[in-house]
């Protein structure tokens, strides 16, 4: 199905134009119409994105579904879209998550519902644009434009301290990205084009590579976010409405990881190699130190936000441990390096599902109690047994229980890192204990024990809409955990190709 359609353009523009339509439908006379319209558009986008999967040729590392038109001729900027095995799964994750977000906001958002739905749809289109743009400037336009709807989402529908959080979010991300813009302009003059694939083949001296690498690091480390530029994330998560948190954790953070894969590693491999210790150190701090920070949180959303930072530490750890793996004389082939990158990619997708599930879970409680404090809960299992079952399952997958998708990515990365250095792997593996500790301790305090107060006593279990969302997520997490092969298969050839770029020195 969909063969020969300009699928990527449809995927980018359908949600954006649909979002504008939802915006115009307005809230006068109830928001039911705009909610339905938003749901229809998001489902249609998801169905279209499945066309990417069914028509995908996993035997080639070349870009597929390519579309290329001149956009700004004088600047050599092209409307250039295309996906490979690395970006395709992320696009499907985006379209999938957006449906859940629309559903999750169905009854909760009563204030200007059409604007809320429209903001998420427009976001969706822009994020798909980020994952599929093959022209650096085209990428940058999506990358920055994405901030506007998120800024509005947190600021309008967020919690009491939302203004501080959203401005902090915007300025942090903007700060990171402008230096990348200068780096891209510089590379344009070196390669004569803004095409990302041309930049992959660009020869750059060590000084240039180092500067460009740090420009990329500034942009992507803020997005991931890596320690020490992670401080915007807990604030943004705590203040954002549930849908905003889900999109932030499930997709926006992945854009940082994707940036490393698409830009930093293949364009500046030599600089990446000489500074890999820095990234590895920052990732380990994220994994271990932020894990401890998560342990002491009293706010559920903050706890999950810190756990996101720790889990994303695995992504950067996997990506940048390839140099150590390749340089270790004990490894005769590149399977270890392939495993590291694939592990990082699987971790990104899996974290998309799990963090989305965690935030939706907190959203369910927050909608009923209007509190995120762990201390306000206790014994929820007595009043919400079905919900508690889902919550325990999601918590287990967040802790990396085998059989869930959370295990697969972390295990692959740890296994690969063992081939590089025992001690790095040892430190990284601590997360399995820490992750279990902070997640399960939270579950224990919130769900088990005696019913602590009247509010908990009055709780009602999941309604059908919530049950639907939770079931879809649980099935996805389980499916990916038990049988990750389809995901790994589509990215395999692209990862091989990426490794070729990484292992080849770009020094002139």
């Amino acid at each position, binding site marked *: 199905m969909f063969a020969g359609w300009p699928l990527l353009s449809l995927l980018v523009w359908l949600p954006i134009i649909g979002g504008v339509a939802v915006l115009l439908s307005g809230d006068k006379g109830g928001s039911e119409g705009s909610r339905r319209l938003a749901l229809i558009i998001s489902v249609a986008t998801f169905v279209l994105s499945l066309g990417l999967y069914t028509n995908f040729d996993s035997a080639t590392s070349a870009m597929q579904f390519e579309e290329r038109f001149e956009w700004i001729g004088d600047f050599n900027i092209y409307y250039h879209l295309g996906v490979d095995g690395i970006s395709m799964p992320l696009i499907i994750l985006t379209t999938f998550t957006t449906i859940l977000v629309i559903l999750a906001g169905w009854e909760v958002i009563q204030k200007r519902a059409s*604007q809320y739905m429209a903001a998420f749809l427009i976001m969706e289109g822009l994020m798909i644009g980020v994952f599929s743009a093959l022209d650096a400037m085209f990428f940058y*336009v999506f990358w920055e434009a994405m901030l506007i709807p998120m800024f509005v989402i947190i600021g309008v529908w967020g919690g009491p301290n939302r203004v501080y959080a959203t401005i902090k979010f915007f300025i942090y991300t903007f700060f990171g990205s*402008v230096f990348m813009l*200068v780096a891209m302009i510089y590379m344009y003059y070196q390669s004569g084009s803004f095409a990302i694939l041309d930049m992959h083949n660009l020869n750059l001296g060590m000084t240039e590579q180092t500067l460009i690498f740090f420009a990329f690091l500034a942009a992507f480390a803020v997005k991931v976010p890596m320690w020490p530029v992670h401080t915007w994330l807990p604030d943004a998560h705590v203040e954002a409405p549930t849908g905003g948190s889900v999109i932030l954790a499930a997709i926006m953070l992945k854009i940082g990881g994707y940036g490393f894969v698409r830009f930093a590693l293949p364009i500046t491999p030599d600089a990446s190699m000489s500074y890999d210790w820095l990234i590895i150190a920052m990732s380990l701090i994220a994994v271990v130190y932020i894990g401890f920070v998560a342990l002491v949180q009293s706010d559920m959303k903050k706890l999950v936000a810190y756990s996101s930072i720790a889990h994303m530490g695995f992504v950067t750890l996997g990506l940048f441990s390839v140099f150590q793996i390749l340089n270790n004389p004990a490894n005769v082939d590149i399977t270890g390096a392939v495993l590291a990158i694939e592990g990082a990619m699987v971790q990104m997708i899996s974290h998309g599902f799990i963090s989305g599930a965690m935030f939706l879970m907190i959203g369910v409680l927050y909608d009923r109690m209007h509190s995120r404090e762990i201390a306000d809960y206790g014994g929820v299992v007595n009043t919400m047994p079905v919900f508690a079952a889902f919550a325990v399952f999601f918590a287990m997958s967040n802790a990396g229980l085998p059989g869930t998708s959370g295990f697969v990515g972390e295990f692959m990365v740890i296994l690969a890192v063992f081939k590089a250095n025992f001690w790095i792997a040892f430190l990284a593996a601590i997360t399995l204990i820490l992750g279990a500790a902070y997640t399960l301790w939270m579950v224990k305090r919130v769900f088990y024990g005696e019913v602590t107060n009247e509010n908990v006593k009055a709780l009602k279990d999941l309604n059908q809409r919530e049950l639907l969302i939770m079931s879809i997520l649980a099935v996805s997490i389980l499916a990916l955990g038990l049988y990750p092969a389809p995901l790994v298969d589509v990215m395999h050839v692209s990862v091989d190709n990426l490794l070729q770029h990484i292992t080849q020195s770009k020094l002139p």
Partner: protein
Amino acid sequence: MMTLEMLNLSIAMPELFLLALACTVLVVDVYLKDERRNVTYVLSQFGLIITLILISQQSPQSRELAFNGLFVNDLLATVLKYAAVLLVAVVFVYSRRYLQDRNIFKGEFYVLGLFGLLGMMVMISSNHFLSMYLGLELLSLSLYAMVAFDRENPNAAEAAMKYFILGAIASGMLLYGMSMVYGMTGSLNIVEVAVALDQIEGNNIVLIFGLVFMVIGLSFKLGAVPFHMWIPDVYHGSPTTVTSYIASAPKVAGFAMIIRLLAESMGSLQTDWQGMFIIMAVLSMIVGNVIAIAQTNLKRLFAYSTISHVGFIMLGLLAGNQEGYSAAMFYTLTYALTSLGAFGVIILLTRKGFEAENIDDFKGLNQRSPWFAFIMLIIVFSMAGVPPTVGFWAKLAVLKAVVNIDMLWLALLAVFFSIIGIFYYLRIVKVMYFDDALDKSEINCSRDMQIALSANGLSVLLLGLYPAALMSICIAAFA
């Protein structure tokens, strides 16, 4: 023997028509009763449309001279004039209700506006130091009077006085510099000066002195730090319609003035004025962005933001090549459009006896009028340089030009200060979208204003989605 043919009047048709129009409006207005003042307005707008048509009739393939070389017409001039007339026409649309509400709906506003426009067009087309000075003074004198137009308002009188004194000093500086250049080159004709300068070798101290004085004069007019002091007071003190006038079309004329005087005639001294421009551009970006953070009055805030944008325009100019000039041109045109929209929204929110010029007056605009809050959102993000608005492409073009002349550090400095700048732009979005309205009254304004303002805001977005056409015009203007 002078003949009429030698004057080559046909290429100055738009200016001649505009002159006749301004005089006609002046005379007609005298015979109108106050309640029929609309006739003046309609006549001016109608005249501007004809001027636009006359300009678009001209499609110069090469440089055409008139008035014995005092006046030049080329693609650059045509494009800039077109933009200037369009901007002034939109200012007139915005002005009508504002002036009526304040009982200053007088014909003089339109007459002065037209004469100012004539001055700008003469500047844009000037090929001679004298005609440049003539155009500049015509513009400045009209502006001084317009700033003081609301004569009951002490702020306006103060602003006009400051503007007049500083403007006069600046004109003096410019003239002094021109005289020194004349002394060295023996000509005031821009092309002849350029030829003569090519002959002069080595460092010539008198010439450099002349250049410094001219750069100071130009920077005063443009409002670059350290010659920016008048901008906040004038923007703040003037009636908002006059502010919107000052903030839009004269920037286009100022750009033309720099191109004609520095790039075309003193191109061979480029390395000398480049150094001065670097210092002023950096200072403008620092001062403009940092001081804007502390402002609570929107007109002052936009005044400081203008200063920082002037810094960016200078970055493009100092590159000193086709890429830089066209980037600066693109920046100037789109910035004039954006800034006009910003003041348009301020005018929209003002009512009889109420000036919506504090940032708090924008609180909850999204509740009062989601559409105009959205327009303001686009405008503000364009000023901040966030895609997909046109402000991003303007910044990109300038940064590209700067990187290409190997001044990477300057590009990094520029993006760094735009991060500082983003803070106060976000604050405007914050009050519009996140805060509750202090004043829940309906926004009512005339249909023509609504259409013009919506078109103005949307054009900022559409130019951002498809900047290629305007970009290639700007590049062709310097081919």
